[in-house]
């Protein structure tokens, strides 16, 4: 064994040296022999001849010596490559087609993998990040599996033995001012353990102490590097300075280092302590734990189950249906896009498979044309393995070139894809902006290129050597027995067509759902509406009278502004995920079940909101200026609420009572269990349903409170302005009016309602576009494959077709013959693909909820499309076949 290794190392080393030494040794050998021969009495010529003969030929000896000295396999490989390069250069059309096809397939895979790598595979930028786990709350009642949890639950969870540290955080938008102007920034409310759990430390100052989570001691703030640099110019002496957060003074105690943030969706700008919150029903926290070394995720999950079971028994009112779901932090931060990315990965894998099939069938066609060459080589003594190796070298070379081009194409596509995803999806994809080529992407591309070369090279290689090659030499190429293309090639075309149909069906189903979304009845008009997101700083606007004054002043000014038709405030715009559900009672009717209440989404709107959005009033009236703070509480409900709660009767004049903790500045007041008083409200009107959650989701029962009366302090609001002209031109006017009404109200975002509608379709649109592009690529490849096959068959059958024409076959018959042959393959492929599509399109439902998996209309249209393309692909060569001149055809060899 060691001897063999030693020999091998010599041989490998010898690859890089020439063997001049041996020539000298051979010379010496011959000289000695000649000396002997002459001594024995031969003439010099005879002596030389005899010596060479005894040696068995100088060249042969040298060859044999070299085989032993080096590794012959490497030498033949070198020969094969040189030969393959020469061959590929000789047929540029074939080479170009094959390389382009492969580059497309490999490039698409590289692109998607780059994104997957950046989002899901690269470790997070924390120390020992693989031990970080996010623990979601689950709720068996609502089916939620990635929910937020309450503070007491977090405290109980953090006693779990599997974790060495656990922390919790929540984001909140706050106003921050250090001088006159107020910023609106994303704050992270975070438990003091975060620094240990994430293993991060402030670059300046210190992290939070546990006691700073107590109310009254929590007015300390840590700045992110970005905020520190933009607001304080990176001044090192910020520690101890005061920042007004939501108009309360906070002392700066630290600055985080650059590039560190905790919130995946949007980087936080400041950190404040998470204040202890005793309510078990108030879920608002994301919980992250650091596993002890050696503890597996499943063990941690098991322990969490024990803990949540115990909590469910101890606090049945709040925790009966609450469980925990531990997920690695990498997966958890990308939980929304994981399925999408994996589906895309599957899609591009299919595209690559089609590319492989296509190139394989091209190679097969060429292999048939090369049979003579291969036969000659076999006859000259090349063994089968050698020929297979030669053909595999060719395909690997093609794949290699395709891989290099594919890497370039893929890098470009990855960048475009990352930009496109980041710009179009309003649900942020964490880390998508870091997409790029690294060692993993490179390795992946090399791997798939190799695999590709082997996959599409094997079939042609073996089919080239399978039947007796000697027969080919004898065989006349005019053979009429094999007038059909090889079975393998036909099978490949069927496979290709089937795969293409699967992708087409996916794209078709998505397109159909996108079209359905676009034409759905939304319940409002989106044109000519400017939507301004506002934030009402809490202590200042805690009282209804302050809010009402601001609303009144703003709306009065707007109504008197030229170019404005109407304007109104609303808490939750349509398509925005819907309003929070609240429990309520219907006056004069028992609760649906003892201990539970009726439930509906509660929104807040001002008087002209419905006319600004052109939401039709079906019964009664909308709010008017008369519905003031001291007038009886008025509500407007949507049609679904009317049908649900007052079936078979008019809801007008009916009353509900709503538990409201009045005038409490904290958002916990929306928690019905903390109810302290009941407000009685009267239904004054019914408006049309609007798609409040998303375009794809039907409206839920929704109840609109009157913004002039509602004692729910709602800090975030949208001002909707219906304009006469282009809504964008009024941006500055509206900004000034709001600023004049109250300079401390930050305006977070200006958008038009059209933009919001378009954004709400962004996700389905992005997936649809991607899938449609890949499906188009697949269809093109399949068409090229079919075209190639039929052309090839026609050229092989020219002789036979000529005889048919000579014997009186009509052109139409020939056309039908060839067309029928090609279309039959396409049809078989379509049927096989249909079965695949049946199984696959339901996966898309996880991406776009409104997808109807087996939509017959979508399926029918893609089949028609596929067959139409197949018809074109077959028609071209078929026409050529029909125009065959029998005289010429019979003469062709």
């Amino acid at each position, binding site marked *: 064994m060691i001897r063999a290794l*030693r020999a091998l190392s010599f041989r490998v080393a010898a690859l890089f040296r020439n063997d001049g030494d*041996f020539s000298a040794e051979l010379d010496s050998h011959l000289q*000695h022999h000649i*000396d002997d021969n002459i001594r024995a009495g031969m003439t010099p010529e005879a002596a030389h001849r005899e010596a060479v003969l005894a*040696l*068995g030929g100088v060249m042969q*000896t040298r060859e044999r010596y070299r085989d032993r000295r080096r590794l012959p396999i490497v030498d033949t490989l070198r020969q094969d490559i040189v030969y393959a390069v020469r061959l590929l250069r000789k047929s540029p059309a074939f080479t170009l087609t094959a390389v382009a096809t492969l580059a497309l397939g490999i490039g698409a895979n590289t692109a998607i993998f780059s994104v997957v790598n950046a989002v899901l595979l690269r470790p997070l930028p924390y120390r020992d990040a693989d031990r970080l786990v996010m623990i979601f709350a689950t709720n068996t009642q609502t089916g939620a599996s990635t929910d937020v949890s309450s503070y007491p639950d977090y405290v109980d969870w953090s006693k779990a033995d599997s974790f060495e540290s656990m922390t919790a955080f929540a984001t909140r938008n706050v106003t921050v001012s250090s001088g006159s102007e107020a910023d609106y920034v994303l704050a992270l409310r975070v438990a003091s353990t975060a620094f240990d759990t994430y293993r991060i430390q402030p670059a300046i100052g210190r992290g939070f102490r546990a006691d700073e989570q107590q109310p009254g001691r929590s007015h300390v703030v840590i700045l992110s590097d970005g905020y520190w640099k933009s607001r304080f110019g990176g001044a090192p002496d910020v520690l101890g300075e005061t920042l007004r957060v939501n108009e309360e003074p906070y002392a700066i105690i630290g600055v985080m280092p650059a590039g560190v943030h905790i919130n995946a969706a949007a980087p936080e700008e400041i950190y404040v302590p998470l204040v202890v919150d005793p309510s078990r029903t108030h879920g608002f926290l994301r919980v992250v734990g650091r596993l002890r070394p050696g503890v597996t995720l499943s063990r941690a999950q098991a322990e969490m189950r024990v803990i949540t079971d115990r909590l469910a028994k101890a606090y049945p009112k709040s925790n009966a249906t609450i469980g925990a779901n531990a997920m690695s932090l990498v997966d958890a931060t990308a939980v929304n896009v994981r399925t999408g990315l994996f589906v895309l990965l599957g899609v591009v894998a299919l595209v690559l498979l089609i590319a492989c099939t296509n190139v394989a069938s091209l190679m097969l066609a060429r292999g048939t044309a090369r049979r003579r060459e291969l036969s000659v080589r076999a006859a000259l003594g090349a063994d089968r393995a050698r020929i297979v190796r030669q053909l595999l070298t060719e395909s690997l070379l093609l794949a290699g070139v395709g891989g290099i081009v594919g890497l370039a194409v893929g890098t470009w596509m990855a960048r475009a894809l990352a930009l496109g995803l980041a710009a179009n999806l309003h649900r942020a994809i964490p880390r998508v902006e870091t997409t790029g080529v690294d060692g993993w992407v490179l390795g992946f591309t090399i791997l798939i290129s190799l695999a590709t070369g082997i996959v599409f090279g094997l079939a042609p290689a073996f089919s080239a050597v399978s039947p007796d090659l000697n027969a080919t030499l004898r065989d006349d190429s005019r053979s009429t027995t094999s007038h059909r293309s090889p079975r393998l090639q036909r099978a490949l075309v069927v496979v290709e067509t089937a795969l293409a149909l699967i992708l087409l069906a996916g794209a078709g189903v998505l397109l159909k759902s996108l079209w359905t979304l676009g034409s759905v009845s939304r319940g409002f008009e989106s044109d000519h509406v400017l939507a301004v997101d506002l934030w009402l700083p809490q202590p200042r606007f805690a009282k209804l009278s302050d809010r009402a004054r601001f609303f009144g002043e703003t709306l009065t000014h707007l109504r008197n502004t030229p170019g404005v038709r109407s304007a109104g405030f609303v808490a939750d715009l349509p398509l925005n995920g819907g309003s929070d559900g609240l429990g309520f009672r219907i006056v004069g009717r028992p609760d649906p079940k003892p201990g539970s209440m009726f439930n509906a989404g509660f929104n807040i709107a001002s008087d002209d909101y419905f006319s600004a959005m052109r939401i039709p009033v079906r019964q009664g009236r909308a709010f008017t200026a008369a519905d003031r703070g001291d007038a009886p509480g008025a509500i407007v409900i949507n049609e679904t609420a009317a049908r649900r709660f007052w079936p078979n009767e008019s809801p007008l004049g009916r009353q509900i009572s709503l538990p409201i903790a009045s005038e409490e500045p904290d958002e916990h007041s929306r928690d019905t269990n903390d109810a302290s008083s009941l407000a009685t409200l009267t239904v004054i009107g019914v408006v049309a349903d609007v798609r409040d959650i998303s375009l794809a989701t039907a409206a839920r029962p929704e109840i609109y409170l009157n913004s002039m009366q509602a004692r729910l302090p709602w800090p975030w609001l949208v001002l909707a302005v219906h304009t006469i002209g282009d809504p964008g031109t009024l941006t500055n006017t509206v900004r000034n009016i709001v600023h004049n009404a109250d300079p401390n109200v930050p305006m977070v975002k200006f958008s038009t309602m059209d933009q919001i509608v378009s954004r709400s379709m962004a996700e389905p649109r992005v997936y649809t576009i991607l899938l449609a592009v890949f499906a188009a690529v697949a269809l093109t490849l399949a068409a090229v494959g079919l075209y190639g096959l039929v052309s090839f068959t026609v050229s092989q059958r020219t002789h036979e077709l000529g005889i048919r024409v000579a014997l009186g076959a009509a052109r139409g018959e020939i056309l039908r013959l060839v067309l029928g042959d090609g279309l039959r393959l396409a049809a078989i492929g379509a049927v096989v693909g249909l079965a695949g599509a049946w199984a696959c399109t339901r996966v898309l439902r996880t991406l776009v909820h409104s997808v109807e998996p087996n939509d017959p209309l979508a399926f029918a249209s893609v089949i028609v499309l596929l067959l139409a393309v197949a018809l074109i692909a077959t028609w071209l060569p078929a026409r050529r076949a029909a125009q065959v001149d029998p005289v010429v055809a019979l003469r062709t060899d």
Partner: protein
Amino acid sequence: MTDDKTDVWQGTLALMILKTLETLGSLHGYGIARRIEQTSANHLIVNYGTLYPALLKLEQEGYIASEWGISENNRKAKFYRLTRAGKKQVERETREWERTTEILARFLAPRRQA
């Protein structure tokens, strides 16, 4: 590649080379070939061409070593000699060969056992 017959040959050829070098010490390729022919009383005709790959293999395996020198004819020649590993290998291979021939001899013995 070489065909089957030569492979078999090479097995025995290696032993012949090693044994020749053991007897004669240092020798060049042509000398080894000649010596083998003479030892076999010219029953074997060595194809000299096959000798060199065999020598190379033995050298790669470390059983023999080579260096350039001047032959008795006053010509430059590459001389081969046994290494320490080579000496052990001769013993081992000799033993194995003897065992093989002994076994074969039993098969070929004229007397059949009852």
